[in-house]
């Protein structure tokens, strides 16, 4: 049993070391400052269109399906409650994270992987640079800060488009939708959604940086690293989503 698990433990050990090293490298401010700004632009601004698109469709689908379920069974203004709650708690953070795992995670893994196999990371090291501070810390900081920001954008546009669809399809008024939205809302839900997205926002670039930083085996290795980064992050998002719902959601209530 242990023999089978051993490679896994070695990997987790390496991952842990990289994170530990990143933590220590936070002191190396001048090395990561510029790159952090650049990464924030990349993760934040350039991901905004796809995140907004996702958010809009998420809100539209959600409201159509909720209205379908409520029809002739419960007051329709409740659509406001269900759409808002489900977007803030679940859909906004998770869909945004999955999109970013594909878009941002893959590109970070490919970039670092290429730098590894073409010896650019070695080049940084021999120039007495701390490659972790230069390459890994910026994506971690940018991820933790920008993912919640993007999630809030997705939430807002999702709820807005859910509202518009309700108005257009079942003659609900904005006031009624908002009444529903306020009905079960507690601020903790929003806090929880943001904490959740920050956690995702840490692990997406962390996974990508980890597989990229330790890439082996040329162009093929880079391809594998990219795929691995997306798979690991996606699975991790689902698992963390469950764990946080189970252990964190009630804790703050």
């Amino acid at each position, binding site marked *: 049993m242990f023999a089978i698990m051993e490679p896994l433990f070695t990997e987790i050990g390496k991952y842990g070391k990289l994170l530990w090293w990143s933590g220590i490298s936070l002191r190396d401010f001048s090395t990561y400052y510029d790159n952090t700004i650049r990464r924030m632009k990349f993760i934040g601004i350039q991901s905004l269109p796809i995140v907004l698109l996702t958010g809009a469709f998420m809100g539209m689908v959600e409201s159509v399906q909720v209205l379908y379920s409520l029809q002739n069974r419960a007051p329709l203004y409740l659509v406001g409650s269900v759409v808002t709650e489900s977007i803030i708690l679940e859909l906004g953070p998770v869909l945004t994270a999955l999109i970013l795992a594909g878009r941002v995670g893959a590109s970070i893994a490919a970039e670092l992987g290429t730098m590894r196999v*073409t*010896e650019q990371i*070695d080049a940084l090291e021999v*120039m007495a640079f701390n490659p972790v501070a230069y390459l890994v810390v910026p994506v971690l900081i940018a991820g933790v800060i920008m993912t919640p920001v993007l999630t809030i954008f997705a939430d807002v546009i999702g709820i807005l488009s859910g509202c518009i669809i309700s108005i257009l399809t079942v003659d609900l008024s904005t006031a009624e939708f908002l009444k529903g939205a306020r009905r079960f809302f507690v601020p903790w839900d929003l806090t929880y959604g943001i904490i959740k997205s920050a956690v995702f926002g840490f692990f997406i670039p962390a996974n990508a940086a980890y597989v990229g930083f330790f890439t082996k085996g040329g162009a093929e290795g880079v391809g594998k690293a990219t795929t691995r980064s997306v798979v690991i992050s996606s699975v991790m998002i689902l698992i963390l989503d469950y764990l946080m719902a189970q252990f964190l959601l009630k804790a703050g209530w």
Partner: protein
Amino acid sequence: MIQIENICKSFNTHFVLNQLSLMVNQGETLVIIGKSGSGKSVLLKLIIGLLKPETGSILIEGKNIVKAGFRDLQDMRRNFGFVFQSSALFDSMTVSENINLALRKHFKWPEQKICERTTECLNFVNLEGLQEKLPSELSGGMRKRVGVARAIAGYPQYILFDEPTTGLDPETAENINQLILKLKRELEVTSVVVTHDMHSAFTVGDRIALLHKGKIDIEGEPAVIKKSYHPEIKKFLSGYTLLK
């Protein structure tokens, strides 16, 4: 001075270097020759601390780089330039950014001075005016020379070359050889050149060492190596004399 003493390095169960010892004197150019896969790149990476040996020590001016902590390692590396076989230029940066990245970090210089030093280094390798080009826009020989410019930018005392002429046409290779000689002549650097190009070895080397089966089998001045009866050396030399 670089003193390598009883170095062992293996990957998994595969021994690459076995009890290897070697000395690089101040101001000389030492050439290490050896077949592909004999561990030449590994040896260079050990010298600069990118890899750690299982046993043995590597003393740089008396300080053991094998045992150096993070800060010491950084300080020791600032004395080194490393020219990678694949050039390893940062492909998202321009030529001048490649050259002055380390300058910006390690020297608290005004922009003007950084620019001047960048130009100076580019001129040294005869690549005037290429500051704003991207590495992908350059030929292999030009990238090699940018690699050299980047390596010398921080005024290193030691420069390590990993197969500087491999994969280049004879004329470009000769350019690089002349550049290595010029570095020694004008900047008085100590160099270690790893290669399997015998012409290059005889052109730039003050001493030549053969890396064979994980050890330095024979070392000496070019004239000595030329007369050697070592079977590996003879293989290298037969290719060389055929070319002549």
